[in-house]
Structure formats: C-alpha cells, structure tokens
C-alpha cells in the first residue's frame, strides 16, 4: 500500500534521512523502531507531506506522492497522528474532532465517525466541551487518535502514541491500534517502546542514524540478538 524507496530528507545542511526504504502492505501493522534522532519522525513527516524529500520516492496505492502538499494527501487516505499529539489547545474537544472532518463533504459521515470515536474512547465524550489544551496527556493522545479516525485515512501513521503515558493507558492505546487494524486500517507505527510495538506488529524496520538497518517479520526481529540488545534492553 505504501512504499518508501531511498528516501532522503535534509534540514538545511543536516541530512536527517540518508537512505530509508521500507514497505507497508495493505492491512498490516508495520513498526519503525530506532534510537532518539534516528529519523523516525522525519520519515513520517515526509510521508504525510510536512517535510520535503530531497531524494527518493514515496508511493501510496500505486501513486507517486513524493512531495505532495500535506493537505492534499489527507483526502487520498493518509492520516498522520504526529509526535506530541498536536491537539489544538483552544479548540474544544468537539471542535478538534469536527475539524478533522474538514475534507469530508458529507457532514453526516463526520458525525457518525465522531460517534465511533466516542464509543472507542468514552472518556473523550465526557470532555467534549473542554478545551483541547486542558486535557491530560493520555486524553490528548486518545483525542489525537480520535481525530485520525474522523479523518478516516486508509493508512494511519502513528508517531509514539505511548509517549508519556502510564502503563495502563499504554495498553489501552495499543489495544485501540489493534482494533483499528482489525477494522481494516493499515498502520505504520513509530515507537520507542519497541517491546510493545513488536508485540502487535507484523513487520518491523530498525532505523539507525538515517538508514534502515535491519528489517523482517516482527516475530523474527524480536528474537534477533542485535535488536534485543539495542532496543529491548536484554
């Protein structure tokens, strides 16, 4: 469904991504793991159009989408839950969800998807009139995933959804991710929490300083001594 080939991304003089290639097959969960600064966030930002690629190609559903504008990729089916959640702080929870339906003409569909979000995260329903900025970190993360559910992309790019969450909430978020995948969404998951990510993923890629270093089925990667030592702390 999504193919990244020889991706390069520069920030001014800094080469953040030197050569990253991977593939996300339809209906699967693929995880990118790697140390801080490896380039995971940058890779996701390049896919969703927030950063320009200075080389390589990104193909989505057979279409070259390299360097397309971010807002044009949303209706094509790419939903990106960014690092740090990026909830609109002075929009209410309700408005945060509503605006995620910006590109959807039929507002009935937006309302229906918002209902799905409320069913998945009852806590979000209780807080609809609260300002986004006043939510707790965990609630913000749920809202961020909720927004992506409203946007309704076929592929979900998730950047560290477990960051800063208590262990119970981490489990809850991972359960939601699996549920979304079961409902037919393809998932590209970036995680520091490699153990949890490898648990739910089908495939894994390890990024090191701008390169894809190893890759393979998640089960195999979990057993790989190099991965175990560097990312699973065993």
């Amino acid at each position, binding site marked *: 469904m999504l193919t990244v080939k020889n991706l390069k991304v520069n920030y001014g003089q800094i080469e953040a991504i030197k050569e990253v290639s991977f593939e996300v097959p339809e209906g699967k969960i693929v995880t990118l793991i790697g140390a801080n600064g490896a380039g995971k966030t940058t890779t996701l930002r390049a896919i969703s159009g*927030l950063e320009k690629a200075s080389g390589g190609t990104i193909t989505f559903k057979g279409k070259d989408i390299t360097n397309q504008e971010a*807002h044009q990729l949303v209706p094509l089916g790419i939903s990106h839950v*960014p690092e740090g959640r990026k909830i609109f702080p*002075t*929009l209410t929870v309700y408005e945060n969800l509503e605006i995620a339906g910006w590109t959807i003409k039929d507002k009935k569909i937006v309302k229906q998807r918002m209902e799905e979000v409320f069913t998945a995260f009852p806590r979000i329903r209780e807080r609809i009139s609260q300002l986004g900025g006043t939510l707790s970190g965990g609630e913000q993360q749920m809202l961020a995933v909720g927004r992506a559910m409203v*946007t309704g992309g076929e592929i979900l790019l998730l950047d560290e959804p477990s960051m800063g969450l208590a262990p119970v909430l981490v489990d809850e978020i991972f359960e939601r991710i699996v549920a979304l995948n079961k409902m037919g969404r393809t998932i590209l998951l970036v995680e520091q929490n490699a153990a949890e990510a490898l648990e739910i993923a089908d495939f894994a890629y390890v990024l090191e300083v701008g390169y894809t270093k190893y890759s393979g089925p998640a089960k195999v990667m979990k057993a790989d001594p190099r991965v175990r030592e560097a990312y699973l702390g065993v």
Partner: protein
Amino acid sequence: MGSTLAQQIINVLQLGSIYALIALGYTMVYGIVRLINFAHGDFFMVGAYVAYAVFYAFNAYIGAGSPLAFLALAIAMIGGAAIAMLSNQLAYKPLRYKPKLSSLVTAIGVSMFLEYFFSAFPLIGPSQRGFPEILPKQMYTIFGAEISNYVILDLAVAATLMVGLTFLIQKTSLGRAMRAVSQDKDAAKLMGINVESIITATFLIGGAFAGAAGLLAGLTYPRIQPYMGILPGLKAFIAAVVGGIGNVPGAMLGAYILALADNINDTYISQFSNLLAFLILIAILLIRPTGILGEKTADKI
C-alpha cells in the same frame, strides 16, 4: 459641538470603531502568520480612496443617500480586501518560511510603496481631497449630545461588522479553521486544511475591514490623502498590542481604550498629541506584555 460627557462618549465610540476595524485586521493577520503587517494602515487609506472613486464616478447621484453609501461601502471593502490579498500573494507569501525579519522589513516596504505610489500617481496625487457628502447631513440631539446620521452610520456599520466577525470566528467552519491554523499549522495541514487559502481568507477579511474603516473615516473626517493611514494604523497597532495581539476581542477593547486615551489627551493635554496613547503602550509592555486579554494559551486569532 457640545462638550458634555455624552458628547465625549459618542466621540470616543466613533473614533474607537474606526480604530477597531483597523486593529482587527492587524491582530488577525498577526494571529495567523505572526506578521506585524505595517502596511495595514495603508489598506485603510486605499479603502478611503476606493470609496472616493465610487462617489466620483457616481457624481450625479451624490445626495442620493443610503443606496450609494452602501454601494461605496461594499466596493471599499472589496478594494481593501484586494490590496491586502495582493500584498500577501506578492510580498509576504514568498517569505513565509524565511526569517521573520524579512517579512517585517517587507511590510514596511509595502507600506511605503502604497503611500508613495498613491502620492505619485497622477490621478491621485499627494494633496488632500475633500470627501463628498453623500448623504444629506442631519443632526440629532441625544442627552444633550449632537450626533449626526454619519456617526450613526459609522457605529452601525462597525458594530455589524464586529458582530459578524465574532460569529464567523466562533461559529463557522472557516472560523474554526482560522483558529486551528493560528494555533498549529502542521496539525491543520494534517486535518486536510489548505493553510495558504485560510491565510488568504484572513488577509481578505482584514483588508475588507480596513477598507470599510477607510470609507467611514472619509465620511466623518472628510479629508483624505495618501498618508492618512499612518497615524490611525499606528493607533490601531497599539490597540491590538494593548488588547493582546492575536486576540480578536482584545483588539476591539484596545481600540476603544485608545480612542478614550486620544480623547482625554486632546481635551486636557492637547499640546502633546498622542502622548497618552504611547504612554499606555509603554505601560502595557512593562506590566503585561501579552496585552489585557492576551494569554500564552489564548486564541491567536
């Protein structure tokens, strides 16, 4: 003109409304692109000239009253919106992701360009022009204050526009998108919002409001010239800062505070004009740099 309290209040409301219409554009543009658009006062001047041109073209109908006034209002707003949009497209957009100083200097350049262009343009020229009386002027007396139908028109138009803008920002999907873009452009893009078109819409609205203010100012202080935007522009900028730059209700509040300050200044310390306005600016910057209604988390739109 009486100098009763009622009269002073009307004068303050009148001047404050014009400041408010200008200040709103300043604050909205700042909110959405973090640019202090120094050319904004000149959009006000353009609005006044556009309205003047309408009256000039419909010379034969002068005195025809309100239909002509509303036509002029509409066209002045379109004129202000057009010049704001052009400035954005030609001058500010190419510098959007460059260091802030570049666009700030460019804004000063746009401002000077408009002033000198209008002064040098043969049909306009640097000299003052009297603004035609389009309506038969009528005076009413309320609580001992004299109020003309022009002032009533000013207040009514300004109030309508401000209520309309508040509704737009709070209740419509365009308004929601404007607030979203002002808070986080990346997140807005990820919602599928075309950030540039929302920025354009903001310039259009801000320019239209400045254009409307230009007409209203032309009607009530019936002289126009190419540099007429400098001082009101500066006052409106101070008003926006006093209210909390980026904050819409703040700009309105700041505008009336500034108008009150000007009024007191002219009444009691007329030998130092504008003194109070600048003192207020300095005081705000020292005591509460975010402005009266501005907060770190406030809507920057």
